[in-house]
């Protein structure tokens, strides 16, 4: 990127010209010109921080209201490199803002507060903040915030490389062709904001190609939707950059651009489905054929979810559709128009909607919804699923699919079903993201508990509640964990696990929708997502859940939440269930969730509500427990989940070439970065 651009000269004009492309860390002027957005309702602190940051030679934009900050971020997708936000704000809880940012923009976020209580700091960690500063903030503390940006980018690269399995070929050349890529990318930068910068960056990038620097193409919502549509059309298996590029037919876009984006997308999906390879089997059933279409369900789901998440739009309908699809039901719902619609959001997603959607999807697949949940009464599930779908936009589709085939399917389903909700959700985004969540809710559950997270998300999205938000999320994540582990789930294998991945995706709200659509489009999609399979989806799910959980606002948006909750529960249940002891909590949840799981089968989510509440409670417990349990389990599965930390993960993977989980990972010290296992992750006591 062009940090060098950032240099005073090139930096283009103040504000955000963002000459400094986050992607490029290698500039001799870096971190000068780092574009910081600082949000604090306390004017005194805000002014002081601004002055301090300017003293550090950063480009500062200050804002005293979270909503305004969010709209500023949305308006200028690539306009900021890092966000610093206060925890206690009157119009929106800082953690909620954190989640939104993670989902939609995947930027590193630093939390700060005069409150230094351990639980608050922990909340920051679990919500994915990359750092937590105690007020009063000293300038020394601000001098090094650039490290978070670099780290994220680095991880992004790493993810890309890791996930590059599918497209190694693309990857490598991509790196070397960065220069070209960047140039073209820049030109093709839809946002088009920084042409000048782009050029400069190109130069820089050429110099640094194959380093961290990556040309930054702005993947706008529309663009991403086109991308997702193309991928779906081709089928995830066959989705190679070249073909995608051709299908997209976007002038100025290079194969490298597409390749890197695809990598991220895959990672994202992987994360969503994360859970498991086991789940892949589940996933298979996901899309409409019980068999393993999805072999790599995880991946598939992940994709879906991601897409959805990204799109932020995972409307409930999409999810529902997906689920239906997953379940093998007639795609009545799957009309999915989704694919494109939500795809947009992939990267820009407005809200955590996706997450939920994803969760739902997973569910949908399995025809036998609750296999995963041993002993968990699954009766409810179908309904829950239905609920999910219906829930406002929520996850209605909660992909309870989980059950049978591993959640993975669900996500896909979800996406498909999304179209309708999506619209809805989108609208709401501003309002409070409510709509989005619902969709996601549906899906996430599948993934190991991601669903739960998703649910939470929905809840949050809907209500825009900050408060409820966080806790929920936490639960979800927790839920995921154990779930993943239980790959033993009969038949379902870890759909949950996968679902988790999906869930994470769901978080991305918009993404789910897209994902769903994609999934539909490409039956083969899932299978190709090998990465997912291998990875310990389990892990990813867990993480996803976290994210998901966050969004999962207990508050509920009636349907969405419910679906979400249920799902989460189920997710948890599934995951940890089968063999693990996690059952305890899961059990409770599972029951609730089971209902959800069956979502795939049933679309009426009447129960959602009840379940939601129930779930909330359950989730709460479970989440915490799950986490604990998870860790040990994670070990074995590892591999995939490293990125799932926090909602940001999803987005980061896809959206920018940022390290996806840089922050959360660091925070969580999750070991599995590369092995995807949460080995080190000691989330034991993550207080929500």
């Amino acid at each position, binding site marked *: 990127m062009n940090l060098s651009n950032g240099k005073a000269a090139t930096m283009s004009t103040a504000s955000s010209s963002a000459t400094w492309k986050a992607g490029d860390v290698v500039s001799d002027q870096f971190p000068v010109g780092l574009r910081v957005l600082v949000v604090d309702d306390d004017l005194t602190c805000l002014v002081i921080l601004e*002055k301090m940051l300017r003293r550090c030679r950063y480009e500062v934009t200050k804002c005293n209201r979270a909503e305004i900050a969010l709209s500023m971020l949305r308006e200028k997708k690539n306009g900021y490199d890092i966000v610093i936000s206060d925890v206690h704000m009157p119009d929106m809880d800082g953690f909620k803002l954190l989640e939104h940012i993670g989902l939609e923009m995947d930027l590193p976020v630093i939390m700060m507060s*005069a409150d230094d209580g351990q639980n608050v700091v922990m909340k920051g960690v679990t919500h994915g903040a990359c750092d937590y500063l105690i*007020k009063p903030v*000293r300038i020394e503390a601000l001098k090094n915030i650039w490290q978070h940006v670099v780290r994220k980018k680095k991880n992004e690269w790493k993810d890309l490389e890791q996930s590059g399995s599918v497209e190694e070929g693309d990857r490598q050349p991509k790196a070397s062709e960065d220069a070209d890529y960047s140039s073209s990318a820049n030109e093709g930068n839809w946002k088009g904001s920084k042409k000048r910068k782009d050029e400069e960056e190109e130069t820089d990038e050429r110099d640094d190609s194959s380093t961290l620097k990556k040309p930054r193409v702005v993947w706008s919502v529309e663009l991403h939707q086109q991308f997702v549509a193309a991928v779906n059309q081709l089928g995830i298996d066959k989705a190679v950059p070249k073909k995608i590029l051709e299908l997209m037919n976007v002038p100025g876009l290079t194969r490298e651009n597409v390749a890197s984006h695809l990598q991220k997308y895959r990672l994202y999906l992987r994360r969503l489905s994360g859970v498991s390879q086991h789940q892949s089997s589940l996933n298979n059933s996901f899309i409409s054929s019980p068999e393993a279409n999805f072999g790599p369900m995880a991946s598939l789901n992940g994709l879906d979810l991601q897409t959805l998440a990204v799109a932020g739009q995972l409307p409930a309908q999409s999810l529902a559709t997906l689920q239906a699809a997953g379940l093998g039901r007639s795609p009545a719902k799957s009309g999915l128009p989704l694919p494109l619609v939500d795809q947009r959001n992939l990267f820009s997603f407005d809200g955590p909607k996706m997450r939920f959607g994803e969760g739902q999807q997973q569910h949908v697949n399995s025809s036998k919804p609750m296999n995963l949940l041993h002993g968990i009464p699954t009766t409810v599930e179908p309904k829950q699923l239905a609920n999910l779908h219906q829930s406002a936009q929520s996850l209605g589709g909660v992909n309870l699919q989980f059950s049978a085939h591993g959640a993975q399917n669900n996500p896909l389903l979800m996406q498909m079903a999304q179209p309708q909700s999506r619209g809805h959700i989108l609208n709401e985004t501003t309002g409070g993201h409510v709509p989005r969540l619902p969709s996601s809710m549906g899906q996430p559950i599948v993934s190991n508990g991601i669903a739960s997270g998703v649910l939470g998300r929905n809840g949050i999205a809907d209500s825009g509640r900050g408060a409820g938000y966080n806790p929920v999320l936490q639960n979800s994540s927790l839920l995921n964990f154990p779930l993943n582990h239980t790959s033993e789930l009969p038949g379902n294998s870890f759909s949950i696990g996968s679902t988790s991945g999906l869930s994470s995706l769901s978080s991305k709200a918009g993404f789910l929708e897209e994902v769903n659509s994609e999934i539909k489009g490409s039956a083969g999609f899932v299978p190709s997502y090998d990465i997912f399979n291998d990875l310990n989806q389990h892990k990813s799910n867990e993480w996803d859940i976290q994210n998901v959980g966050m969004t999962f606002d207990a508050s509920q948006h009636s349907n969405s939440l419910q679906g979400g909750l249920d799902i989460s529960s189920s997710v948890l249940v599934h995951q940890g269930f089968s063999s693990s002891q996690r059952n305890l909590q899961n059990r409770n949840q599972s029951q609730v969730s089971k209902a959800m799981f069956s979502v795939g089968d049933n679309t009426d989510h009447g129960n959602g509500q009840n379940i939601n509440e129930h779930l909330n409670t359950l989730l709460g417990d479970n989440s915490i427990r799950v986490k604990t349990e998870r860790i040990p389990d994670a070990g074995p599965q590892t591999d995939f989940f490293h990125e799932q930390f926090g909602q940001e993960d999803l987005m980061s993977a896809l959206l920018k070439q940022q390290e996806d989980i840089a922050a959360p990972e660091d925070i969580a010290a999750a070991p599995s970065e590369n092995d995807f296992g949460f080995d080190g992750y000691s989330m034991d006591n993550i207080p929500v």
Partner: protein
Amino acid sequence: MDVGQMRRQWVEYTKSLFMEGFLDSQFEQLQQLQDESNPDFVVEVVSLFFEDSERLLNDLTRALDQPSVDFKLVDSYVHQLKGSSSSIGASRVKNACIAFRNFCEEQNVEGCRRCLQQVKQENLLVKNKLETLFRMEQQIVAAGGSIPNMEQIGF
């Protein structure tokens, strides 16, 4: 009084404020941030703080006067005041806020009211002290001198 004397006086006064706990190192940070491009930075920020604090103190008074006190609300006000006072280095105000929060947790209305009085008093004290300090600075600048840099002085 000549400029040199004024400057020395300013230094002594500043030191005393730190010694007596009215100000802490955060205030120094503010002073360091002031430069030619922003020569009135400290005065501006401090003024912002006092506007904020007066408003918060009024809100607190009102909240504690309610027949049924909403402690969560009171606590959130105190938290805000704690945050902003710590940002400018008004450490006695900050400490009073910390004590105040404890009473909020205990839901002790009387304790809270007492703390409110304490906070108001500290707020007024540091306001007067800073006004004095700023006046000295104005005089120094008016006399053609420059405000000493505490860091340089080795404080």
